[in-house]
C-alpha cells in the first residue's frame, strides 16, 4: 500500500528524515535520485536510526585500505554507529543482522512509501 509521505523536493539531496507512517517510525533516505525506507529502530540497542547520518558505504580494498562505494549509501546509527545499507537494511558487516526496509518511489514529485498492509490493520485495531 503506497503512502504519500511528502513533496520530493522537500527532502535533502543526500540525507534522511524520520517520519511517522501509519503509526510506525520510518526513516526515509534520499541519495540523489534514489530513495529508500527503513524502520527507525536500530537492532542493536533500539536507538533512533533517523538521528544518525547517511554516508557512502565502506568498501574494503584489502588490509589497511578502505574505499567508499558511492552507489551504496549506508545509515550510521546515531547512538553507537552500527551501519546498515539503505538499499537492503542489511548490516555492513553482519549478514544475519538487518533493519526492515521498505520500497520508496517518487510519483509526480510526491514520495510514496510502500507500507505493509499490517500497519494499517494495527492502526485500526
Amino acid at each position, binding site marked *: 500500500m503506497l503512502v504519500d509521505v511528502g513533496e520530493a523536493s522537500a527532502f535533502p539531496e543526500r540525507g534522511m528524515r524520520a517520519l511517522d507512517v501509519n503509526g510506525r517510525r520510518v526513516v526515509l533516505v534520499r541519495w540523489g535520485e534514489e530513495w529508500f525506507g527503513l524502520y527507525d529502530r536500530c537492532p*542493536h540497542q533500539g536507538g533512533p536510526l533517523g*538521528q544518525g547520518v547517511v554516508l557512502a558505504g565502506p568498501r574494503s580494498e584489502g588490509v589497511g585500505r578502505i574505499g567508499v562505494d558511492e552507489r551504496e549509501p549506508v545509515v*550510521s546509527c*546515531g547512538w553507537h554507529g552500527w551501519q546498515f545499507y539503505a538499499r537492503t537494511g542489511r548490516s555492513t558487516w553482519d549478514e544475519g543482522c538487518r533493519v526492515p526496509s521498505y520500497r520508496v518511489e517518487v510519483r509526480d514529485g510526491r514520495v510514496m512509501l510502500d507500507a505493509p498492509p499490517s500497519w494499517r490493520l494495527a492502526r485500526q485495531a
Partner: protein
Amino acid sequence: MYEGPIIDPDVHHSWKSEDWIIDHLSPRWREFARASGRGHVPLAAPGTHWPHLHGVNKRLDGYPADGSPSGSDYETMKRQLLDPFHIERAILSFDVGTNPGVFNADFAIELCRAINDWNIEYWLGMGDPRLYSAILVPTRTPEAAAREIRRVAPRHGHLAEVLLVYSGLGKPFGDPAYDPIYAAAAEVGLPIALHVGGELTCGTGRAMAGGMAGSRLEMHAVASQPTLHHLVSLITHGTFEKFPSLKLMLIEVGVAWIPWLMFTLDAQYPILRLESPWVKRLPSETFREHVRVTTQPCEFPEQPKRLIELLQCFDGIEDLLCFCTDYAHWDEDEPAYVGSRFPRAWWPKLFWDNAAWVYGFPRLDTAGRAG
C-alpha cells in the same frame, strides 16, 4: 524487561556555555580566564584525540535543540533518560571531569571550586529529587582537594561522591600522596568514584601501556588499563585499611576483567605481600567489601550466558555490579538491553541495591519500589 526504578551512576552533564563557569571564578581568575582577549583560556587540559565515528563522543540525538552542548539541557536529559527509563537517581558526573587537568595547578583549584558552586546552584538547584552529583577535585594538589571536599560537601545533600578522573600527580591513585583526598571523603561520608578518561584524554602520555593506540577501536579495547592500575594501587597500598569506611565505585571499565584481575592479585599476594604487609586480607576480599563496578561499556558476547558464566567464576559477583548508562556518550548502554543480558534474579541488585549501598540510599522495598 526490568521495570523497576534505576540508579544511574554515570550521567554526563555539562554547562551550556563556558561563560557560566567563568562567571563563577573569583575576579582575579575570571580576568585570567578571559585575558586572551578573544575567547578564553581552556577549561580543561588539551586532549589526546582519537577520532570518533561521527566526529563527537556523543550520541547524535543527545544535542539539545538550541544547539548547546550535549548533557547541558535538563529538559533533554529528562526526556531522553530520566523519564523513559525510570531513573530515580541520576549521579551527574560532568563530561567527564577532566577539568582538574588544566596545566596551572592554582587555576585547577579555582576551577574546581567554580564548577562545584555552579553545579550546586544550577543542576542541584533545579529541584528534581532524582538529580545527585559528584564533587570535582584538583587532584594535582591533594591537600587543596581535601579542603574542597570539606568546603562543598556540607552545602548540599545531593552531593553523592568525590569524582577522580585525572591523576594529577602522575601516580596511580593508591599512592599515599593522595591520602588527604580519601581522608576527607571518609570524613564527610562520601564514596570515591573512579571514572575512566583522565589519562586517556588529558594529553598525559600515560594513556596506555605499550604506546599510543592507532585507532579508536584499538584504544577503546584497552581504555580500562589506567583505571585497573588505579584499583590495584588502591588495594595494594592499603588505602582501604587506612580508611576502612571508604567505598569505591569504578565507572566505565566494563566487568569481564573482574575474575582475571582478582584471581591474579589473590594468587600473587601470598608471595609478594612482603611489600604490602598492611594489606591484611586477600585483595579480592577487600575488593568485595569496598568496591562496586558499573557495567558500561558492558561486554556483550554473542551468547549472553558466556559473560554470566565468566562472571560467576568470581563468587558473589551479583553483589558487585551496578548498571549505568553513560548518557549521553556515543557508547551508552540502554537498560532493557543490558537487563536482557543478565539473569532476572540479579536485576534488583544490578539496577538499584548495589549502587544504593555505595551512595547510602535505601534499598528497594519488598515490592521493588525505591525507598
